[in-house]
């Protein structure tokens, strides 16, 4: 932390808290299980995704991937490809337009790339699968076919591709999302050596891939005056626009980015090489160009979750009191990229007399890693929450009771107060729903035919984040409808539905008189949909716009009306109009206030930097419970029951929020039991580069998932909300590992928990 940050924090601690949002307890529309407003369009095939959009004169692009992980292109011959039927042009580093570096993704910068090296600018190969050429043709069939005819000769150089082989070279990154890469208190190793009960184990996790079903798609079209329109499957409209404008060297206002529907994002629908290459192809050919990644390109040209190595060591007194907590970790990343923040949960979950919590990085020559659903926290919690369960077993204490005995009074590493923390209440309610008292207590003791049955639990956790910046506009039309607009994103979270619910509640309107327009960068700039932060970030800007709207409408109040001369604090939105606070019978409808003009507009901006999470410890929590059945002969593991109880603040829509938690649990089941990105360390090539080779849960793998929310508002957040997109995956893999141990007596510390590891552990017979 630098001097400026220290000074800001010190000042921030003296500032008063923002007043509690009065809507935190409103229940007219917010809190209702409203079905998705985009439902009819999505179940009929009417929703428009990027690859569905056509343009007159459209050309089609296909990329040529490199075959080596490191080195130089000695020779590239495009003759055969250029002469193939239908080919318009072939672009390589010899003829690609000059591009500046893409802007990296950080909390404060406006970029959203995971590599700061622009494509096709030199002859250097940086990873296996990186694009070395782009073919543009009159049809996709012609482009794909000709892409195979580009002849490339490489001078391959030694590449760093084996994460586990390079662990000894790990070094500390400069920081972990602005926090120190390691935090410590006391002599943790000495304390550990003297503790009565000790767990000291290594846990490992492989690369994971987002595998959104929609293939990344871009369409680019240049028009006179250096204007550029990009249709892109992005989860960050504004940042995509900024990144592209910066890279291609045109003013940001010349670029429009449009994206109405995204077919899943999970952190990886950001800026990669293909958008810049599509824009370059449109520039070179003078045609609108569409570039849709092939499935293997998604695996090799866009990054996933980094592999991790983690040591967790816990030392405890006989009563379970934690005396030492070590979480040392290493992640495999690309130069200064996102570090995969695995050490975050251990910084906030447990009180311990001494601790050392930190992470190092190993730099690899692979496709740059990206943020994937609860980056760091999900795989970090696998190690931490497995170790806590192991400790509970050694101590002979119920794992929930062990957690209860180590609940911190204040944030354990930052010393800040909690804005809210209801972790143990989530455990209490979840345990009740699951029937935890009836669980199997002795590992390997419960059997149902060929199945060994086990039960496990683990904590969910995710930071509260509100993105800085952002605007929203509210338009009241002459017929008394409200249209809320922001350049927001919806990859399936239900953005439109919950923002309509919010605005309807805020403006005192029924749902059918509110609409939400999003998905285009010409609308008021809105933050990236990431970090589970979009809902809170939008709510606060829309709330600000509503306050501005009061001022605008009051200025329009007729002289003889009940509102004449009043100030914003004197009025509330209710029943389709503005009413006096002091006399609820006195008010004027929106229709009257808008009057003769067609509409009235007000714009709100995010009021201040999100300083609240520097002053308080602000996190979501939850408790996962699961039952697994492990085949006693083959080691096959099935998840047969799941209960998740989540403490993520106020829930705007329990239907869509529960779906987000379920989706995260299912992705977590995948990480626990099957998902494993395999890299051939000789060539640095991802070999699991298809939906058939990269296994993820299918319908037959998914049981009914019981989701409940505590629904307790956070007094310091807009409308009391936290994000719900990521917290659900955190703790899932640990809960399954703990249940597998409970079923079989075998502790697997290396994800995924596959049959061979259970058999090698001696469980199956």
């Amino acid at each position, binding site marked *: 932390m630098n001097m400026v940050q220290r000074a800001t924090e010190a000042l921030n601690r003296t500032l008063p808290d923002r007043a509690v949002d009065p809507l935190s307890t409103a229940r007219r529309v917010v809190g209702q299980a409203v*079905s*998705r407003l*985009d*439902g*009819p*369009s*999505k*179940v*009929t*095939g*009417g929703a428009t*995704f990027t*690859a*569905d959009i*056509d343009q007159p004169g459209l050309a089609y692009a296909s990329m040529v991937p490199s075959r080596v992980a490191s080195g130089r292109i000695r020779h590239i011959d495009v003759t055969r490809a250029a002469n*193939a*039927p*239908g080919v318009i042009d072939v672009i390589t580093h010899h003829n690609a337009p000059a591009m500046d570096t893409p802007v990296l993704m950080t909390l404060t910068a406006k970029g959203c790339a995971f590599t700061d090296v622009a494509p096709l600018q030199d002859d250097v190969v940086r990873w296996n699968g990186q694009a070395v050429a782009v073919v543009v043709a009159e049809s*996709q*069939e*012609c482009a794909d076919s000709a892409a195979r005819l580009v002849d490339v000769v490489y001078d391959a150089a030694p590449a760093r591709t084996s994460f586990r082989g390079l662990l000894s070279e790990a070094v500390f990154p400069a920081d972990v999302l602005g926090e120190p890469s390691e935090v410590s208190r006391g002599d943790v190793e000495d304390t550990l050596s003297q503790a009565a009960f000790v767990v000291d184990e290594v846990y490992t996790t492989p690369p994971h891939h*987002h*595998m*959104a*079903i*929609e*293939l990344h798609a871009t369409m680019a079209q240049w028009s006179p005056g250096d204007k550029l329109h990009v249709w892109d499957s992005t989860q960050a409209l504004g940042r995509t626009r900024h990144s592209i404008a910066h890279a291609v060297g045109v003013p940001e206002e010349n670029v429009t980015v449009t994206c109405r*529907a*995204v*077919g*899943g994002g*999970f952190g990886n629908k950001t800026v990669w090489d293909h958008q810049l290459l599509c824009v370059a192809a449109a520039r070179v050919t003078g045609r609108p160009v569409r570039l*849709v990644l*092939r*499935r293997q390109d998604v695996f090799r040209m866009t990054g996933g979750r980094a592999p991790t190595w983690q040591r967790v060591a816990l030392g405890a007194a006989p009563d379970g009191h934690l005396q030492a907590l070590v979480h040392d970790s290493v992640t495999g990343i690309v130069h200064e990229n996102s570090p995969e923040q695995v050490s975050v949960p251990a910084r906030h979950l447990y009180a311990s007399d001494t601790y050392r919590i930190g992470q190092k990085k190993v730099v690899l020559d692979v496709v740059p890693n990206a943020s994937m659903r609860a980056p760091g926290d999900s795989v970090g919690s696998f190690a931490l929450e497995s170790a806590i369960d192991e400790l509970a077993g050694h101590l002979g204490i119920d794992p929930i009771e062990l957690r209860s005995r180590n609940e911190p009074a204040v944030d354990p590493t930052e010393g800040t107060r909690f804005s809210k923390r209801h972790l143990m209440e989530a455990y209490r309610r979840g345990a009740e729903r699951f029937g935890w008292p009836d669980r199997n207590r002795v590992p390997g003791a419960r059997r149902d035919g060929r199945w060994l049955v086990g039960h496990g639990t683990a904590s969910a956790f995710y930071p509260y984040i509100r993105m800085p910046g952002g605007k929203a506009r509210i338009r009241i039309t002459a017929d008394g409808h409200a249209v809320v607009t922001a350049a927001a994103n919806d*990859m*399936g*979270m*239900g953005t439109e539905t919950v923002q309509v619910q919010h605005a309807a509640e805020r403006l005192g309107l029924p749902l059918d008189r509110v609409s939400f327009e999003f998905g285009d960068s010409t609308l008021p700039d809105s933050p990236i949909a990431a970090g589970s932060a979009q809902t809170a970030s939008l709510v606060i800007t829309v709330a600000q716009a509503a306050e501005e709207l009061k001022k605008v409408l009051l200025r329009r109040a007729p002289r003889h009306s009940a509102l004449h001369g009043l100030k914003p604090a004197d009025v509330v939105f209710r029943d389709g109009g503005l009413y006096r606070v002091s006399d609820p019978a006195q008010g004027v409808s929106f229709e009257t206030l808008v009057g003769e003009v067609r509409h009235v507009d007000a714009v709100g901006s995010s009021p201040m930097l999100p300083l609240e999470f520097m002053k308080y410890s602000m996190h979501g929590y939850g408790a996962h419970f699961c039952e697994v059945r492990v085949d006693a002969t083959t080691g096959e593991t099935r998840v047969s029951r799941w209960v998740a109880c989540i403490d993520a603040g106020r829930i705007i829509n329990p*239907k*869509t929020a*529960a*779906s*987000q938690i*379920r*989706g*995260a*649990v*299912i*992705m977590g089941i995948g990480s626990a039991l099957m998902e494993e990105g395999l890299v051939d360390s000789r060539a640095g090539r991802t070999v699991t580069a*298809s*939906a*058939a080779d990269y296994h*993820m*849960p*299918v*319908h*037959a793998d*998914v049981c*009914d998932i019981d989701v409940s929310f505590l629904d307790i508002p956070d007094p310091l957040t807009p409308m009391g909300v936290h994000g719900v997109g990521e917290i659900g995956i955190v703790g899932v893999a640990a809960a399954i590992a703990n249940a597998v141990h409970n079923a079989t007596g075998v502790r697997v510390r290396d994800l995924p928990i596959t049959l061979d590891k259970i058999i090698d552990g001696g469980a199956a017979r």
Partner: protein
Amino acid sequence: MEHDGISTAKVTVRVNGSSQSAAIDTRTSLLELIRQHVGLTGTKRGCNQGACGACTVLIDDQRVLSCLTLAVQADGREVTTIEGIGDTTQLHRLQSAFIDHDGFQCGYCTAGQICSGVALASEAAAGVPSVVTDDLHADEVDLSLAEIRERMSGNLCRCGAHNGIIAAISEVYGS
């Protein structure tokens, strides 16, 4: 036929009851015929290698992966896409059930899930067994949750809407 060095063929397919003819590159998949030439974009490309199910459509009421079907193979056949199942003014009951049970999030795999759901009902009604069917000789297979899950496992969903999808299909076709 050959045109500018590209082998072409004329195909005629009935799509959602309407006859469609096109002279196409013989490499064109049924998926791209539907999307590019007929202009119905509700059917999605998720992998183009038959592994995800997003492109599922019906040929003569049986489900097929349109990305692995050449357009010429569908010549003279009856193809039903999501647009032919129901529209926003008249939703098919399975489409309504998907909305009620929140059987989708991003909506990208949804067309394939719904087409598969419609087809599996007729497969079960015709007594076609699956790996979890107990009675292989039954005239009709009861669609238990296990049957539906098994028969839907070729349709991947990454948002994790599995519970809602299965609940919707079970409500409409389940035993």
